[in-house]
């Protein structure tokens, strides 16, 4: 396995098109959190012609609902949630220039096609490693929908967040490639 690729936000089509399924990435910069309820609200707002809570163009969205921050910490455990539940909303955001989605678990065909069409990637964080992931987060601030609690939209500043490229702009899928490599009929 080659050395991890360092990536910083905001992301460009050019930067993400260099990535290939199977690459390990260390992501730094500002990213935004949103999961089920926040996605529903963001897409509904966009449909009404309202502004989203953060600029979608060049953004990376992390599908996470962190646990509460104990005193002296910026955030609690913060691993990824399962991504397919956001599939309904993802193509709309990809069309507006969203460049990376961070989660775990496979994506549907429409999302994969929208990634190729709009030059965006899907990155997997290790599910269930919430305490470890918290160590890559330097700042966290709720910027929208505070009433949603763990599902509120947060602005995070991350440093060297460890991720794997699952779906790239070339239509490759690490989940399919990986299982093919190690499966035995």
């Amino acid at each position, binding site marked *: 396995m080659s050395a991890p690729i360092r990536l910083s936000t905001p992301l460009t089509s050019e930067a993400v098109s260099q990535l290939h399924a199977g690459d390990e990435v260390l992501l730094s910069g500002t990213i935004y959190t949103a999961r089920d309820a926040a996605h529903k609200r963001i897409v509904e707002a966009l449909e009404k012609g309202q502004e989203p809570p953060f600029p979608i163009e060049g953004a990376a969205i992390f599908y996470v*609902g962190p*646990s509460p921050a*104990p005193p002296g910490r910026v955030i609690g*455990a913060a*691993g990824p949630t399962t991504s397919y539940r956001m599939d309904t909303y993802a193509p709309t955001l990809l069309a507006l220039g969203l460049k990376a989605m961070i989660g775990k678990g496979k994506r549907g065909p429409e999302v994969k096609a929208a990634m190729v069409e709009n030059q965006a990637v899907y990155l997997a964080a290790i599910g269930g490693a919430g*305490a470890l992931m*918290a160590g890559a987060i330097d700042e966290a601030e709720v910027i929208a929908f505070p009433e949603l609690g763990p599902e509120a939209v947060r602005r995070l500043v991350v440093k060297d967040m460890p991720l794997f490229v699952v779906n790239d702009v070339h239509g490759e899928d690490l989940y399919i490639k990986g299982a093919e*490599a190690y499966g035995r009929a």
Partner: protein
Amino acid sequence: MLIQTGPIPVSYCGSKDLSNLREVPVSAVTDTVVRLCGEANIELPADVHQAFYQAVESEESGVGRGVLARLLENADIAQQTRLPICQDCGLAVVFVDLGQDVHLVGGDLEEAINEGVRQGYEKAFLRKSVCHPFTRANTGDNTPAVVYVRLVPGDKVHIWVVPKGGGSENMSQVKLLTPALGRDGVKKTVVETVQAAGANPCPPVIVSVAVGGTFDQAAVNAKRALLNHLDWQNPDPEAAELEAELLQEINDLGIGPAGLGGRNTALRVFADLKPCHIASLPVAVNIQCHAARHKEAVL
């Protein structure tokens, strides 16, 4: 014949001395649940830790070994920082084996358990993940818990707290097969369920399979089998054989740690076989993520 109504004659109730009943205050149940909620979410059980070490040894994929090493690191960080292992601190599933010689005093058992969950999730900074099914409004304190109470001989109260994450629960299945599909049909259902789940339930998973009983009993038996330690030897040889075959077939899927490809898709399969109706063959497959949190105490 006339059906008698009204109070049951005292003579039917017996007049045995009840002094062998042991009184347990429900507040002790609350205190225990508070402690177990925190410990379960923060401290990876020793059996799961051991299974991770064994998986690192056997894993052929370099990426897979890297993922498993990070899971071990995550468990250490959680232990040191007292952050939960996973941000999904689960729905609190609580099993109680209540000795029939115990007299619970001082309140309602189920409310005592919910109070334990309420305090435990707040005190240990755990995520509250329970909401209304339609409005999705969060109940704010991770209650209500899912509680299963079983009466058993003796004068002890055995409590297990099993925080159950949503990602793996969503990939679980109950199916009512036709008896003609038989053992092969059960195996096919289990392997297909794990394959369809892929990376979603955070592999390497624990797969709990309950066959037989009714629609509801199969599901509860599959959940209950998750209380077993991963190194537990199934005393039913027929079930143990099924476990071994399923583990092999599941690991041959190649899904691997975090679903990124590898030889460790499941750490363990549990199988529970029960008799069923002549018309039925129920099978429940409960998938548990690698953060297989379970803590227990005896009062």
